């Protein structure tokens, strides 16, 4: 059964068709949400929310892009919105921690290059980070990224270039270790 037929049946409310669509796309959606969230709980929440929304709005899907691209755009939107909420929550918690740790002067251990890279990626602006994660981490093409994020492929390439430049600047202290 091809995806078009599955979509028709799913639109009619057939649970088996919904399950088949889920099975076909859940891995890539989960990987993407996990890469963006960096947490198993958040990734599961975002994946579930993505499929629930997709099944409820299946009537809105016109087939202009592939179902996968449409699903990924929902996943990115859900993840970024969810992360924004989490960030606000963590910022409040951090304020409390700062107040608690006031006067603590112990020097933190210098992270290794891999950990520093992860921190640098986390610190990228959301738009750059999304393009970087999709392209360099998950292997999406610029056309796929453009379709998912509603950009021109050229914009996707430009954002990836700026993301890499920012990472290079963030890791300047480690210059020379990259080839090791």
């Amino acid at each position: 059964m091809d995806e078009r037929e599955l979509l028709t049946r799913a639109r009619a409310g057939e649970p088996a068709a919904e399950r088949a669509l889920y099975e076909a796309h859940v891995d890539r959606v989960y990987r993407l949400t996990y890469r963006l969230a960096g947490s198993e709980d958040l990734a599961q929440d975002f994946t579930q929310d993505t499929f629930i929304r997709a099944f409820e709005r299946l009537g809105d899907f016109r087939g202009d892009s592939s179902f996968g691209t449409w699903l990924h755009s929902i996943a990115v939107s859900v993840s970024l919105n969810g992360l924004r909420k989490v960030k606000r929550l963590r910022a409040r918690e951090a304020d409390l921690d700062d107040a608690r740790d006031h006067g603590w002067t112990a020097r933190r251990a210098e992270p290794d290059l891999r950990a520093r890279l992860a921190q640098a990626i986390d610190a990228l602006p959301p738009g750059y980070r999304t393009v970087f994660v999709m392209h360099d981490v998950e292997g999406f093409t610029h056309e796929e990224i453009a379709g998912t994020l509603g950009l021109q492929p050229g914009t996707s390439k430009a954002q990836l270039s700026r993301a890499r430049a920012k990472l290079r600047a963030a890791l300047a202290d480690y210059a020379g270790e990259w080839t090791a």
Partner: protein
Amino acid sequence: MTDDGFEEFLQREARGYNAPPPTPREEMWARIDAERRTRRAGREVTIARRRVWWTVGAGIAAALVLGVGIGYVWRERVQPVRVAQEPNPVSPATGVTTPSTPSVIAPGAANTPPASGAGRDATPSPREERAAYAAMTVEHLSRAEALLTSFRVESEHGTVDPQVTAWAGDLLGTTRLLLDSPGARDPRLHKLLGDLELVLTQIAQLHAGQGGPKNATHDELQLIDQSLRSRDMLTRIRSATPAGGGARGALSTGT
């Protein structure tokens, strides 16, 4: 950009960024399925509730439309199709018009006298209002005539009964009401009521004076009597209130 190997480093190391564990397919599907069922049930409840409200609303609307329709048809059937106004009869002797009752002809009852009040509007017509005002005025003036007569008889003996002054106080209030009424547009009647108010005030104030009306001085009583005579009060009141107390005399409702 690749001369220092940074992009190769990124491609090699970035794959390890937030490396996901195996997908918990069944676990997530169970939650998705449960959530979808809950939402579907909630939607069905909402739809059912809306349906109930629509049914109730439609029932109320239908009852209202039916009620208005029945009322309209009923009103059409009992409403007079023609109101014939007969000219007011004029008394040949006095030239004063008297109120007349409009003839109401209901459907199916043409040329037959209508039942009392049938098909008539509850709101009185201006003519009816004028007739009611005239009747009240005549009754009031009759009482005032009786009061003034009593006062004159008693004042001749040098004393006035407190009941007379209290009576004057009562009539004073009614006089003011009649003066303020839109019916008091007739200048003659307005002047008569104005003079009556003044005299009644003088009589009513006798009671308020030191020692009460029984101890009213001769001068006070003389002053009131003079006021009565100079204004020709009793004659004017009698000409305005014919014997029998009908709403005729100087009071005309046809004007």
